[in-house]
């Protein structure tokens, strides 16, 4: 919750004021909190509910957990360091007996209303409450008593186990302030207060997009992704099944973090080796399908553009990308009246599945029912997407199981242990070749940049001298770029984070949008910051390192434009014909639904 305060000190921000922390004279920026001021001099105050998303300019500091309380000389109560602004001459004590006792008691209280199933909890070892309890030396709960219990909520993507909720409200901030979905908020009062959808609906009945940003910030095990690894293991163990796997671009630049490698380490080859060694029959690349997406979506863009230039008044522009399942859920719930604007192209995950279970199944000589397609995604919404009815044939899904980057790490740890010492291996063919254009799908702006590389060459008939479109890159929430298509100026819009997407959609609805094409990614940063990635707790330096790694991977490729992907060309030649052919339309395109009826108005 962002506190807007207009104290005179904040108005003169940047002015330094003198305070004292633990007896130390400190000069700190006016307007900063005790927590921030203490941090500047290396005094760390433990926190729990506090979360600061510097880049988005959003803080979650409801002052609710009371773990960060400190003594301010002259005040009768303890002050929460995360929300208390410093004042000139303030004298702060962060480690007095009174503070330590209060902090420990508060922690004991929180733990007294928290299940003790840590050993089998999804967050075991990564739980911030667990760590805090250790750091503060809590060895005994003096206040045993009733624990609050709630109905568990299982959706295809996210599990809500609110018995573990500590009311930090971080998920609420992500859902409402960042993503503007308005699904999660505090309900009930007192001891039974909890974060939930309105009327304690299940997530599947709510306007939840399953972007997973809530669970990515949950400090405890209250919000976790559905763990599909047991199903994957079962399929791998079944000798009658051929199990193939596809891996999304953003996974390869983040997986290493789960094994202690620095953020931004590219582990593509090790990941392939690991998957093969776990026992997947074939290890393919979602990037192949990303190139395919560009062929379809790029062609659709050029088609709409040409019609528009020829004076067709009914053509829908801007074209909106449709790779991101959280984003698709968002507009189906929130802007169903505009569902004819997004590209009808399926996401790369689903294009891969559709081709795998037809063309590839034939090539491998496996029946559809015996082929299991697993996807490794930086995302939890992909789980929901793979279970959509329209992506099944006679009940058999094109993509059987979607697992997140975190789940893959877990699977590797359970089976082969580590990836660090593995020798690099390459993807299987076909459906293993990809271009640099496909890799950058993982970054915000990447899909549209990839589309521009192809659309430009097809539209102008010229070869791009420089494939990087720097004007489309960056981390601002909403960006705009102009591309010169041989004298024709193409306006590109980019949004990441659903709150930013909402702004662009509202402009379109009001007829104020001047864009020809807009890329939207539900998660801040794009897929690299997806809800299924190793937890970054709002640390944007991690996101930036992953983004840089994605661009490095692009640069390392010899082919960097989707239409030059030889395997994709082969697929069209052997099977699909041409982009947007009838067969392509049938396998690679989809339609969208009005889900607003489920929203409580």
């Amino acid at each position, binding site marked *: *919750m962002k*506190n*807007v*305060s*207009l*104290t005179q000190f904040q108005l003169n921000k940047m002015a330094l004021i003198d305070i004292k922390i633990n007896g130390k004279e400190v000069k700190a920026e006016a307007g900063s909190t005790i927590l921030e001021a203490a941090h500047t001099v290396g005094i760390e105050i433990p926190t729990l509910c506090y979360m600061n998303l510097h880049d988005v300019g959003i803080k979650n500091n*409801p*002052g*609710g*957990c*009371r773990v960060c*309380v400190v003594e301010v000389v002259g005040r009768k*109560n*303890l002050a*929460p360091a995360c*929300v*208390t*602004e410093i004042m000139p001459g303030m004298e702060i004590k962060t480690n007095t007996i*009174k503070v330590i*006792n*209060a902090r420990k*008691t*508060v922690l004991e*209280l*929180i733990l*007294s*209303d928290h299940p003790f199933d840590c050993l089998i909890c999804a967050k075991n070892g990564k739980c911030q409450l667990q760590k805090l309890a250790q750091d503060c030396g809590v060895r005994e709960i*003096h*206040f045993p*008593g*009733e624990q609050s219990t709630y109905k568990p909520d299982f959706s295809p993507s996210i599990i809500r186990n609110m018995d573990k909720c*500590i*009311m930090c409200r971080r998920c609420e901030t992500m859902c409402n302030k960042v993503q503007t979905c308005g699904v999660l*908020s*505090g309900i*009930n*009062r*007192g*001891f*039974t*207060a*909890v974060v939930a959808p309105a009327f304690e609906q299940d997530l599947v009945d709510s306007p939840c997009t399953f972007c997973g940003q809530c669970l990515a910030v949950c400090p405890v095990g209250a919000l976790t992704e559905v763990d599909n690894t047991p199903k994957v293991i079962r399929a791998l163990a079944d000798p009658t099944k051929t199990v193939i796997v596809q891996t999304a671009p953003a996974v390869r630049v983040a997986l290493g973090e789960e094994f202690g490698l620095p953020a931004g380490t590219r582990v593509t080859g090790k990941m392939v080796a690991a998957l093969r060694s776990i026992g997947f029959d074939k290890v393919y690349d979602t990037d192949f399908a990303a190139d395919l997406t560009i062929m379809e979506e790029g062609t659709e863009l050029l088609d709409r553009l040409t019609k528009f230039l020829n004076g067709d008044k009914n053509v829908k522009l801007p074209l909106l990308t449709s790779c991101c399942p959280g984003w698709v859920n968002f507009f189906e719930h929130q802007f169903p009246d505009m569902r004819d604007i997004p590209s009808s192209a399926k996401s790369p995950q689903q294009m891969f599945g559709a081709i795998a279970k037809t063309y590839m199944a034939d090539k491998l000589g496996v029946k559809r029912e015996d082929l299991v397609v697993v996807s490794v995604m930086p995302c939890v919404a992909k789980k929901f997407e793979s279970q959509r009815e329209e992506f099944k044939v006679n009940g058999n899904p094109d993509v059987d199981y979607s697992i997140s980057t975190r789940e893959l790490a877990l699977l590797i740890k359970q089976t082969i242990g580590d990836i660090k010492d593995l020798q690099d291996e390459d993807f299987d063919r076909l459906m293993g070749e990809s271009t640099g254009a496909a890799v950058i799908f993982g970054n915000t702006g990447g899909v549209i940049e990839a589309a521009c590389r192809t659309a430009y060459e097809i539209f102008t008939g010229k070869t791009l001298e420089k494939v990087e479109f720097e004007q489309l890159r960056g981390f601002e929430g909403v960006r705009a770029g102009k591309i010169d298509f041989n004298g024709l100026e193409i306006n590109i819009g980019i949004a990441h984070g659903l709150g930013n997407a909402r702004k662009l959609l509202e402009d379109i609805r009001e007829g104020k949008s001047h864009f020809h094409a807009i890329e939207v990614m539900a998660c801040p940063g794009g897929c690299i910051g997806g809800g299924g990635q190793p937890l970054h707790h709002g640390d944007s330096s991690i996101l930036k390192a992953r983004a840089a790694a994605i661009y490095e991977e692009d640069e390392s490729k010899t082919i960097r434009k989707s239409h030059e992907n030889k395997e994709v060309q082969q697929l069209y030649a052997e099977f699909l014909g041409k982009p947007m052919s009838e067969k392509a339309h049938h396998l690679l395109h989809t339609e969208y639904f009005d889900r607003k009826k489920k929203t409580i108005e």
Partner: protein
Amino acid sequence: MASYKMHLLVCGGTGCKSSDSMLIVDKLNEELKSHNLVDEAKVVMTGCFGFCEQGPIIKVIPDNTFYTKVKPEDAKEIIEEHVIKGRSVKRLLYVDPKEHARVSDSKHMGFYKKQIRIALRNCGFLDPENIEESIAREAYGALGKVLSEYTPQQTIDKIKKSGLRGRGGGGFPTGLKWELAAKSVAEQKYVICNADEGDPGAFMDRSVLEGDPHSVLEAMAICGYSIGASKGLIYIRAEYPLAIKRLKIAIAQAMEYGLLGKDIMGTGFDFEIELRYGAGAFVCGEETALIHSMEGERGEPTFKPPFPAVSGYLKKPSNVNNVETFACVPVIILKGEEWFSSIGTEKSKGTKVFALAGKINNVGLIEVPMGITLREIIYEIGGGIKNGKKFKAVQTGGPSGGCLTEKHLETPIDYDNLIAAGSMMGSGGMIVMDEDDCMVQIAKFFLEFTVEESCGKCSPCRIGNKRLHEILTKITEGKGTMEDLELLKSLSNVIKDTALCGLGQTSPNPVLSTLNNFWDEYLEHVVEGKCRAGQCTALKKYIIDPEKCIGCTACARACPVNAIEGDKKMPHEIKQELCIKCGSCYEKCKFNAISIK
């Protein structure tokens, strides 16, 4: 305007209304009509008289005859005896609990003698649904004076000098609060009236709004002028339908008379008032929670600063005052700040309304000068303890106040003395307890309320109060230990130190004050397994005196769990391990052979 020889004031407050006072009004009017007296006497439905225990109440003006517990069928006699023959109806007069004699009029009633009515000045005197009656008692005179004679700062200075402090609980100086809001620069500011009266048993705000809505509207306009706000909002709980109805009527009438709205009294000052409804959450009486509730957000407090005076409703500077505080403002302007500050103690000026309840003879709403002692309130105004029992404690400040005892009876009541004694003013709840009340149960009872009403935002309040309640329950069940008593104390102190808002910071008060003042009672529960008040069922022990028991078997037959054994005509015995302490045997025994230990 017609002039009448006599006015019959009938209480139209929520309490009396629910005892058919509206029917009494109709019957009185019928009788007047049938006796052709409609031009001689007038029946007026007024706001609350405060003496709710004795309602429905009729007061006859000019002689101040005070009729209590009136029924609709008494109307005929009142008209025929009092109005026509000039003789009061003796059987309806108030009986003094000490003298056991009927009291002729309100001036001689102990309940009213020590009261000074400022906030309640018009309650019980005028028809709240008729603005002309209010104007006749100087309503909007203060607003006119302020708009024509004082600058905003002069007005603020007057309020500051009067020493008026917030009557909603915190006791923050009102003038200072106004000044802070006045100093904030913004195009739009708001005056907010906190009418989310939530203390159980407290109903002073409701009474003011039901009985004298114009005093609040006028004060809000004065505040608006002072701080530079053109909009007022009254946050009122939806459970107050009568107050809402009368406020709506009052606002409409004031708009019609040009006393609210655009260009008030031709001075160019605009001020409009809207109502906002609360759903009855106790925590929404906390000003930041109240503001969030009005904004459509979840009603829970946020950390201050920023204070509402800087960033309040819709992030605009807002001044929040409680109903009773506002009700004092017009009088301060008209009678002067010196007059107001001459009443009360050094740091607490004026009067305070208390809702007197519990084991006391005169239950009701009273307004007394600050500095009055608890003894004066309980024994003079309150008429002493019910049924001649012994006074044990008085809880002030609502559910999060503290319990004071005998030793505090002579303490002059004001904000600071109450805090020093481990309690607080709160919004003015005052619950009297006698020897039959168990103080552990009392602490548990109040905790139950805060556990229920906590918003759940901060951990100490959400979980800590629940744990306090669990420990208290354990003690009342006879399972408490000495360590529990230590835990109660230390946990209470941590909650006080760490909770986010006033609700949480004060919620352990009932525990701490009873621990301080009634430590021996806690000890008895824990060490001796005894509850001296006999309120803790689990600690009760029913025992048959073999000397008195004649073996009639009545008790054994009454026992639902067959815990009583004994042969016919032989003394019986209660098997304690089976007894569920239902008391059936005790009631059945005709020989007083069963006692409770």
